[in-house]
C-alpha cells in the first residue's frame, strides 16, 4: 500500500502536486490537502461518537423504564452507593477532561512539553478514576450487591443492619420491591461497567499517545489524532456526567 502511495504522488500529471510546494508527510495519498484530511477525520470521529451515544441509549432507555417501575428499589439501591467517592470521581473525571482540553491546546500551539504534561496528567487522573471505581466495586462485592452472584437483599429488608442504609434513613422495603434492587444493580454495573470499559480503552490509547507525543508527533501541525482522542475522552466524561446523578443522586434527601 505504501508503495502505491508513493507512486501515486510521484505521478507527474498529479494535478495538485504542483499546487503546494510539498506535502506534509502525514497527508494520506487520497486526500487533496491537509484540511480535507483533518475535516474528514474529525467528522468520522463525530459519527463514531454518534454510535456511542446510541450504544448507551439502549442502557438509558432500560434505566428510565425500570426507574419508573421500581422507584423505591432504585432509591434504596442508590443509597448504597458512596456519594463521597462518586463526587470525587466526577471531579477527577472533569479535571481529566480539562487537562485533555489543555493538551489539545498545547498540540495546536505546538508546545511539546506542555502536551506531554497534559497527557500524563490525564492518564493519571483516568487511572485515579478507575482506582476509585475499583474501591466502589469492591464494596459492592463484599456486600453481595452484584447481581447473579449470591445477591443479598439484607441491606434492603433490614436497613438498620446496614451502615449505608441506616445513614440514609431507609425504611425496610417490601420483599418484592427489595428483589427489584437487583435490577437497579444490574443497570448500575452494566452502565458503569460499559463506561469503565471506555475509560480503559481511552487510557490505553493515552499511553500510546504519551509515547508518541514525547517524540514530537503531535506538535508539528498534525493535531488530528490528539483532537479526535480529545473528543472521545470528553464524550466519556459526558456519559459520566449523566450517570452520576442518575445512579448516585436519587432522592438523597431525608425521608
Amino acid at each position, binding site marked *: 500500500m505504501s508503495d502505491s502511495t508513493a507512486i501515486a504522488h510521484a505521478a507527474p500529471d498529479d494535478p495538485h502536486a504542483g499546487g503546494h510546494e510539498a506535502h506534509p508527510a502525514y497527508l494520506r495519498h487520497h486526500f487533496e490537502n491537509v484540511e480535507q484530511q483533518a475535516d474528514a477525520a474529525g467528522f468520522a470521529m463525530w459519527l463514531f461518537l454518534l454510535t456511542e451515544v446510541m450504544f448507551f441509549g439502549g442502557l438509558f432507555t432500560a434505566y428510565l423504564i425500570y426507574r419508573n*417501575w*421500581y422507584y*423505591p428499589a432504585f432509591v434504596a439501591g442508590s443509597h448504597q452507593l458512596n456519594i463521597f467517592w462518586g463526587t470525587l470521581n466526577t471531579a477527577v473525571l472533569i479535571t481529566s477532561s480539562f487537562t485533555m482540553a489543555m493538551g489539545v491546546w498545547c498540540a495546536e500551539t505546538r508546545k511539546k512539553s506542555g502536551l506531554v504534561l497534559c497527557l500524563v496528567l490525564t492518564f493519571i487522573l483516568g487511572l485515579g478514576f478507575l482506582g476509585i471505581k475499583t474501591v466502589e466495586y469492591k464494596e459492592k462485592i463484599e456486600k453481595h450487591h452484584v447481581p447473579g452472584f449470591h445477591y443479598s437483599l439484607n441491606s434492603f429488608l433490614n436497613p438498620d443492619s446496614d451502615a449505608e442504609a441506616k445513614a440514609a434513613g431507609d425504611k425496610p*422495603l*417490601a*420483599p*418484592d*420491591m427489595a*428483589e427489584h434492587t437487583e435490577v437497579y444493580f444490574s443497570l448500575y454495573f452494566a452502565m458503569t461497567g460499559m463506561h469503565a470499559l471506555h475509560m480503559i480503552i481511552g487510557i490505553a490509547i493515552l499511553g500510546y499517545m504519551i509515547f508518541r507525543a514525547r517524540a514530537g508527533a503531535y506538535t508539528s501541525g498534525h493535531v488530528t489524532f490528539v483532537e479526535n482522542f480529545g473528543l472521545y475522552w470528553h464524550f466519556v466524561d459526558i456519559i459520566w456526567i449523566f450517570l452520576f446523578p442518575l445512579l448516585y443522586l436519587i432522592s438523597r434527601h431525608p425521608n
Partner: protein
Amino acid sequence: MDHISPVIWQFLVKWTTNFPLFPPEASKLAPQMDALLFFEILVSLIGLTIVFLLVTTFCIMYSKGRHPVAVQIEGSTLLEATWTIIPLGLFLMMFVWGSLIYFRVYTPPANAMNIYVVGKQWMWKAEHPGGQHEINALHIPIDKPIQLTLISQDVFHSFSIPAFRVKREAIPGRYTSVWFEATTPGTYHLFCTQYCGTNHSAMIGDIVVLTQDGYKKWLAESTSGTSLAQNGERLFASLSCNACHNSKPDARGPSLANVYGAKLALAGGGTVLADDAYLRESILNPSQHITQGYAPIMPTYQGQVSEEGVISLVEYIKNLNSNYRIEQTLNTTDLLPEGEGKTAPAKTAPQGVVKP
C-alpha cells in the same frame, strides 16, 4: 416409472382433494378481517397491474428499435404529487380500517365468557371456569363471545386460530387477552406462531366449536368435580391468604369481596381498575399495588404459585361476592390435608402449590 407414478398419483389426489387456498371463516370477526384483506389485495393488484402495464407498454413503445433516441425529461411535479398522494390516501384508509379491526379483536365485550390459557413449552393448557382442563385443545360454543386470558409460563408463545383470524402473544409475566365469537361448528387449527424452542411445531391443537347444546354436554362430560374458583379457594386457604384478607375489622389486608372490576384507590395516590392483570400483579408484586390504608407487608408469591395457581386464585377472587365465602374458607383451613393435591382428582390439582 412404476415406482414414480404412485408418488405422482398421490400428489394429484392430494392436489384435487385437499388443497385449500383460503382459510375457513368461522368467527364473526373473520368476514370483517377478510373485507380489509380483500381490499388490500385489490389495491395491490391494481397497483401491480398499473406498474406492469406501464412497464410493458413503455418497453414495447420505447424499445431501442422503435425509439432510437431517448427524449430527456426532468420529471413532473404533478405526477410526483399524484403518486405521493394517491398511495398515501389508500395507505391511510388501510391504517384507519386496520386500527378499527385491531381494537375490535383486542377489546372483549363485557359479557364474554372468560377462558384462561397458559402456554408452556410445548403445550397449551386451557382452564375453563367450570374447572374443565384441556391440553392442546379448546372446546367452545358457537354464538357466544369467548374471551381468552393468555399467559405464558416460560417463553413467548403465540395463540393463533387462523379460521377465526385472531392471534395473540402469550407473554411471560403478563396477561394478554383476545376474544372471538365462533359461528360455524367444526374443528379448526390452533397454532403456536411465536418460535418457542425445540418442539415449537408440535405446539398445535384443535379448536373444537360445538353447538350450544353440544358444549353443555361436553362441559358435563369433562367436569373435574371442582371449578376453577374452588381450586382457587383451596389455594387461598393453603397459602394462608385468609390470615390477612379475612374481612375482619382488624385485618391486615383489604377485604377481597367485590373487589374485581372495582376502582381502587392506591396508597401511592391514583386509582386503578382491579382487573385480572391487577389481581395477578398484586399476588406476585404486591408492594406496587397497595390499596389505601394498608401497609406493604404482603410477601411476594413469585415462584411459589404457578401460573395455573394464580389463575385459579384470580378466578376465585373474581367470584367473591361476599365475605361469607372467605369466612367459610377460614373455617375449613384446618380441615385441609397437607399437600392438598391428594384430595382432588389428579387432573384438577392446582400445580403451583408448593409451600403454604
